[in-house]
Each structure stands twice: as structure tokens, then as C-alpha cells.
């Protein structure tokens, strides 16, 4: 424990008060109200009356809801499975280059798509993929693929398209993160390996991967959580024509509460269920943040 100042509980509370107040209102009260609402049959501006756990029962029986849960988890699993290895390989590739300027330029180029508003990215790709002779098809044709795909009107193509756009948007962030971590790795094992004459692949397998494990796990969890929450990308990409095989949980709640039948109560209940599902995943995050640290003196 640090021995620093006089004990002053009240002052500490005063310092923490602004954050605590905001947190109280915007998380704890929001929680409470969310729970209360989910027990009513509220619809639109009509507050509704208490109907107990009926909403939960209905939601749990709603196939559309379970479909959206399935979509979200499938999307998260596929995205993470593609993005994390790709990002890791690209960052290894970038870091292997001896040119400093080129390295940072490349990282910037990969990162720029992450700066774009997700919704705008969705809209941008919708325009790129609209029509039979769209740019995407021309490029696919150039590389020898089938140039006659009707992307936005084909249900089977919707999910791969979503995964692709998400890949384009998310990978830059992961590359920057991995590169920064690769740079801060302890160099002494590498020197030892070089003296021993270890091959490149065995260095990667025996040194880099174990050292990078925390970073990889952390990124996997964060990416999984943010993929589970996918929402505006779908809205931007499929604005007028959203198939149910790309309707994620959050979009389901949004549509239910603000677009379809305005069933606020039912949507709240869905929100609660989604909340616990996602929380379970993100709780893993807590483990990897290193909370037990003390002040380095």
C-alpha cells in the first residue's frame, strides 16, 4: 500500500462524484428502468401495464429473436476467425519490413477504413455492390471470378457481404494494435534464438506466439463483443432490404421498438436477454486487464 497522504474519504468521494453520478444515472437507473419496462406491455408512447414476465416468455418463444441471436453469434465467430489471423499475419508482415516510413504509411492505409463511420461504410459498400455491372463485379471479373452476381438481391450473398465489409472496416484497428505490441516485445529471447540458429517458423511458433498471447486473446474478445453488437453496418448496407439471415440482436431490438410494432416492453425484454448473453462474453475481458496491479514506485 502506498503511504502518501492523510486519509480523506470525503474528498476522495468528492473527486469521484461526477463520474459516479453520471454512471448512476446512465447505467444503474437505465438498468432499473429497462427491467421495469420489460415487465409491461408498453407500446409506442403508451406506458402500458404490468404483465409480469410475459414478455420474457414470448421472446424466448420467438423464433425471430433466436434467429437474431444465432446471426449475431455466427457473425461474431466467423468475423473473429477471419480477422484476427489475417490482422496478425499482416502486422507480422509489416513489422518484417526494414523501411520505417513505408511501415507507418502501410499501417495508416489499413487503418483509414476504421476511421469511417460504420453506417457510411455500409452505405458506401451498398453503392459499390448495387446493380449487375457494379464495381465489385467488374473487379471480380478482372480477377477471373463470376462477374454476374446480384449481390444485394441475393439472400445467400448477404451474409458473406456483411462479413467482408466488416473485415474491411475492423482489420486496420487490429493491425495497429498487434504491430504496437510486436514492437514492445522483449527482444532477448529473439537474440538467444538467433544465436541458436532457430528457423523463422520456429521463432514464430515458440517465441512470438506465446509472447503475443495476451494481446491476441484481448483482441479476440474485444472484436467478438463489438461484432456481436453489429447494427449500423447492417442498416447502412441493406437499408431497404434486410434479410433475416443478417438481422443481428441489436437490430432486432431496434426494429422491434422503433419500426415494426413499437413494442417497447417486448423489445426491452429482448434487450435484457441480449445483455446477459453479451455480458457473458465480455466478462472474459475483465480477466485480461490486470486489475491487481499496485503503484510502481
Amino acid at each position, binding site marked *: 500500500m502506498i503511504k*502518501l*497522504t*492523510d*486519509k*480523506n474519504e470525503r*474528498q476522495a468521494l468528492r*473527486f*469521484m462524484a*461526477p*463520474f459516479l453520478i*453520471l454512471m448512476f*444515472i*446512465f*447505467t444503474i437507473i*437505465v438498468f432499473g*428502468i*429497462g427491467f421495469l*419496462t420489460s415487465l409491461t406491455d408498453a407500446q409506442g408512447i403508451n406506458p402500458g401495464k404490468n404483465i409480469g414476465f410475459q414478455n420474457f416468455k414470448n421472446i424466448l418463444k420467438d423464433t425471430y429473436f433466436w434467429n437474431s441471436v444465432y446471426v449475431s453469434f455466427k457473425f461474431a465467430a466467423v468475423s473473429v476467425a477471419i480477422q484476427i489471423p489475417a490482422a496478425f499475419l*499482416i502486422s507480422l508482415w509489416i513489422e518484417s*519490413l526494414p523501411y520505417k516510413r*513505408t511501415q507507418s504509411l*502501410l499501417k*495508416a*492505409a*489499413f487503418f483509414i*477504413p476504421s*476511421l*469511417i*463511420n460504420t*453506417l*457510411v461504410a455500409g*452505405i*458506401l*459498400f451498398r*453503392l459499390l455492390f448495387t*446493380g449487375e*455491372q457494379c*464495381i465489385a463485379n*467488374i473487379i471480380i471479373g478482372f480477377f477471373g471470378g463470376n462477374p454476374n452476381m446480384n449481390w444485394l438481391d441475393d439472400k445467400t450473398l448477404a451474409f458473406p457481404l456483411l462479413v467482408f465489409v466488416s473485415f*474491411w472496416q475492423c482489420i486496420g484497428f487490429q493491425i*495497429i494494435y498487434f504491430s*504496437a*505490441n510486436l514492437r514492445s516485445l522483449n527482444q532477448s529471447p529473439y537474440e538467444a534464438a538467433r544465436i541458436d540458429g532457430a528457423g523463422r517458423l520456429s521463432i514464430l511458433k515458440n517465441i512470438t506466439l506465446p509472447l503475443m498471447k495476451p*494481446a491476441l486473446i*484481448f483482441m479476440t474478445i474485444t472484436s467478438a463483443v463489438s461484432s456481436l*453488437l453489429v447494427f*449500423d453496418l447492417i*442498416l447502412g448496407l441493406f437499408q431497404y432490404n434486410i434479410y433475416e439471415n443478417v438481422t443481428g*440482436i441489436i437490430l432486432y*431490438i431496434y426494429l422491434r*421498438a422503433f419500426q415494426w410494432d413499437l413494442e*417497447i416492453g417486448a*423489445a426491452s425484454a429482448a*434487450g435484457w436477454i441480449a*445483455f446477459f448473453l453479451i455480458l457473458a462474453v*465480455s*466478462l472474459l475481458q*475483465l480477466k*485480461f486487464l*490486470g486489475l491487481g496491479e499496485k503503484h510502481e514506485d
Partner: protein
Amino acid sequence: MKIENRFPGLDGLRAAACLLVIFHHVAQRLDIYSQHFILQHIQLFFLMGNTGVSFFFVLSGFLLSYPFWKNYISNLDFPDISNYAKRRAARIVPGYYASFAVSTILALLFIPDMDYFARRLITGLTFTAGFHYTTLFPSFVNSPLWSISFEVFSYLLMPVFMFGLFRFTGEKRSFKKGIIYWVFTLLLIIGINQLIHMYLTPDNVKRGWEFGVTGGSKWWMPNYNPIGFFGHFTFGILAGGICAYFIKNKTLRDRIADKNIFDIASIVSSAAIIGLLCYVRTEEEFTHSIQKQPYYFPYLTALISILAVSLVNSKFTGKLFDSRFMRFTAKISFGLYIWHYVIIALISFYILPEYMNYMAIKDWRLWAGASLLMIVISYGAAALSFQFIEKPFIERVQRVREKVFRAKRKIRPGKLLSAFLLCILALLFIFPLLWLLDASLRPPLEVIQSPPAIFQQPIWKSIESYTRDSYLAAFWHFDVGRALFNSIIVSSGTIFLTAIVVSLYAYALVFMEFKHKKFFLILALSTMMIPANALMIPMYKVAKNLHLLNSWFGLILPGAVSGFGVFLLRQYFMRIPLAVIEAARMDGAGHLRIWWHIILPLARPALAALAIIQFRIVWNDFLNPVIIMRDEKLMTLPVRILLINDTGAVLAAGFISIIIPLLLFLKFHRQFTEGLTEGIRK
């Protein structure tokens, strides 16, 4: 800059010049015929404020020639010209380009037809606008930029002539020879100027301010021309030479100074300047000068030079001129000069349409209010411009870096190929954005045609058909400007509040002792785990009950609850040595003071990282704004974009939404990466 600090009084003079120009533009807005007699004459006096430009030229001539004079008098070599060029470029180019870019964007948005636009753009970017009446004003909304190309031309001529002086005199230099040389140069300039008047005077077709900017510049030229203005600059050079001589011969200088001759001279010359401006206030333009030159050349110019010399050597008056306010104004004077007209334009576009026109406002109270607002905003803009655009470049040049000898790298073909492949991959990544830029600039009909226009003809051919139509549609039909403004307000508000709230919390966690510390830490961090999007409905209800719907605070307040921010700052604070805090405690400083005066400045890198991460979250947020901001006028950019039903406008708005994050990232990418890695380095 270092040199300027050594001369007392010149900061004050520079500030006065800057304020004169601003007051001139302020005075232009008021309708003189409906004012009271006294106000009319005050206004007439301030309309003479355009002479401030002449002050600027004399001052530049003085300060820039001084190092040359110093070497000349001390029998040293010709100064390092590349250093001179670098310093000049660093001082002028970044600020000017920023202002020119903003003015050009505003002009594209607000000015319906612009003659010679391409020409003005090119000459504006190359500092050659001043050589023809079709380009004299490179920007339609920021007229004071005309003088920059004149200045740059003088920057070029001065060392050329100085080089001649060093060459001619060779070993046998004397101060007298130098002054005579420059007087002859002045006469030569006046002679050339005469030739310009004889052969290069524009014809009388559509000449005059009633024919718009082009007619106005035709009317100004050749009375205003780069050669003539080098005459003003030469007066400054002569003044610089005299000062260099005085500083070399200290005894002579002190003898004169002790008799207070410099003080008296400065008072007399300032009185004469004010008197002259009062006298000519009712006279016509281009009178009372030789060769119809503006700014009462050479009488006023000579008075300014005398004032400069006497202020620099004076005992009291120099200090009198350099009050704190004047020094601050002088520091940001370049920014004030290049930005204040942009502010005038913005006020006229958004608040008071008449503010753009000459003599358009009848009510002097309205005029005074608008002008005060303009001046206050201009000071803010100029200070920001100095801090973030001009200063970094000036400092970079001033830092003298020793050239590190770098061993020649061996070229490794394998690595080169691998870099090349990666570059192609990276290009594919940004291709959609290049397409976005291209498509947003095409005529709206081309955008929706299939196959896309980008593949129909080579890009350099299609550039000719680029238009601003989509951007105009986005701004005028779909109110994207307001949405952009809303987004900026919400983002900056959130960043500011987060920084305060979170740093206080982290401070308590790290530097204070209290019970259940760990609980409070986990409490804050747990907000990170909450998928807030799942709670959109109760969030909407809470906002509604707190009357936060359709209010910026409805987005800013919840945005400040950043568990990640607490984590980031806590990590950073823990690295600050406790000794720093303890020392401050010993001195009796309270926690609040330590937090504000010691910890926050120390934690600047972490705060920058936090700011950028928060910015990215808020700028890209869609769900919260769509729930909270139901009013069209308050919508943020993404929500607005979703409602646009015109493809061209969507593309334009999309591109606009990228620009700000892109600029921020390019400027702060280092802090950003550092902030990220702070995450889990154990």
C-alpha cells in the same frame, strides 16, 4: 520568433497594423450616410486602416533584412539563404494554405458563379496571384489574401538585391555604401513601377468594383502591384539597415538615446501618422502619393520607417507600445490577418447576410454587435491557428538538427518485393474511398449509371467533368453543414467532459487513500463490459424524463461514462512518481490544485489518447443519436446521412464525414497508437 523579440516596440507596431486592417474591414460594413456626424468621421478615419498593410511591409522589410545588414556591417559572409527560405516558408505557408483551403471550400459552397476559378486556385497555391488582375484576389471569400503573394515576391527580391550589395562592395564595405545602394534600388523600383503604369495598365472594360471582384482588381491594378509594394518593403529594409548600424555603434546610439531623441521621434512620427490619416480621410483613393500608389507612398511609408527605427532604439516608448495585449496580438497577427475575413464571411453566411456587403448595415448597434463578435471569434481562430497550424512548423524549422550520418542501406530485393505486394494490398483497402471521392465529384447522373463512370474513361479525362453539384446538394438540400456542426459539438463536448470526469476519478483511485478502493475501480471498469446498445430503450426513457431528448447533453452526458478512460488514465497516473505529489503536498497544495496544475499537464499524452479514442466512438456512434436526436436540426452526421435520398448527396456527405477523423488521425496517430497499447501491456 527570436529576432523579433529583440526589438522593443515592433510587436506593438505589428499589432497596431493588424488591428488597423481589421478595423478597416469593420468600418466598411457600416452605412456611413445614416450615421451621426461624429460617428461618420470616426468611421472615415478607420476606413484608412487599410494602410496597415503598408505597416506590415515595412516591418517585414525591417526584420528580414536585419540579419543581412548585420553580416554586411560586421564584414561577414552572405547569410545562409536556405535557412532563410525554410524559415519564411514555415512562417507563411502552413497558415496561408489552411486559410486558403477553408476559404476555397466556403467559396465553393456559397458563391454561385466564380470567374477564373481554376486560375485563381493555381496562382493562389503557388503565391503568384498578384501578377494579373484576373487572379489578384485568389479567394472569393477571403480578400485580404491578395497581399500574401505580394509579400512572398518581396521575400524573393530582398535577398537577390542584398546579394548584389555583398557582391558589388566586395571587401571594401561601408554602411554609407549600403544605404546608397538601397536608395538607388528604391529609385530603380519606382522607375520600373512607372514602366508598369505606362505599359501594363488594364483597359477600361468592366473596370471598377461594380463589376465584382475581377472588376475591382482591374481597378486596383496597376496602382497595386508587386513591384510597387517592394518599394514599401524597401523602406523597411532601409530602416533595418539604420538599426543594424546603431546596434553596431552602441556609443553613438546611446548618446542619441540619452537625449531622448528616439522617444521624441517616435512620438512625433506616430502623431504625424495619425495626423496624415486624419487629413486624407476625406480624400479620394490613390491621391497624395507618387504614381497613384496606395497607402500614401512614400510619405506614410517613410513615417512608419522612422517610427520603427525610433521605437527600436527608444528608452520608454518602445515598452509603451509593447503592452501585453499588443504582444499577444502581434504573436497571432498573421493568423488574425488571414482568418478574420473568413469569420466575416461565416457571420454573413450564417447570422447576418448584410455583413458581407460594403456599407450595408444602417443600425450602428447591430453593426457594433456583429463586429465585436467577429473580432472575438477571429482572436480565437487566430490563436488556434497559431497553436496548432503555424507554431509546429515554425518550431520544427527552429530546431537545428545535426545531420546524422546514415549508413547506406543494402537493397534487399526480397524485402522490396514484399513491401511492394503489401502496398498493393493497402491500395485495394483504400480503393473504396478513392471511388467515393471520385463519385462524389461527378455529375449526379453519372453516379448511378451502370457500368460506373470510373471505368469508362481514363481518370484524367473525367477530372474535367468534375462538379461541386453533389456537395451543394448535400449542403443546401440536406443540411449536412448543420449536421457536421452538431457532430463536432457533441464530439468535442464529450471529449472535454470525459477528460475532466474520468481524470478526477482516476486521480482519486491512484493518489488518495480511502476504503473500498478496489470496489470503486471494478465499478468503473465494469461499465466497459456493458453492451450499452442492448439498453437503448431504457436509455431513451431516461433521456426523455430528464428532458435530454433533442439536446446535446443527451449525448454528451452518457458519453462521459468511460470505463476504458478510467483504466487508461489510472495506468498512466501510476507511472507518475509519487515524489512529485508529495512535494506539492508539502507546499500546502490541495488535491484539486495538484490535479489541475501537476497531474493533468503531466498526463497530456494519455489525455490525448483518451480524446482520440473517445472521438472515434462518438463520431461513429449511430444508435444513440438516432434515439436521442429526433429533431432534424439537431441530428448528427450519420443520422442525417441515412435520411438523404439522393445518391450524389449521400456520397458527398459520406466523404465530408471522413475528412475530420482523417485529419485528426494523420496529426495524432502517434498518441493514438500509444493509447491503444496502454491497454494490456503488463
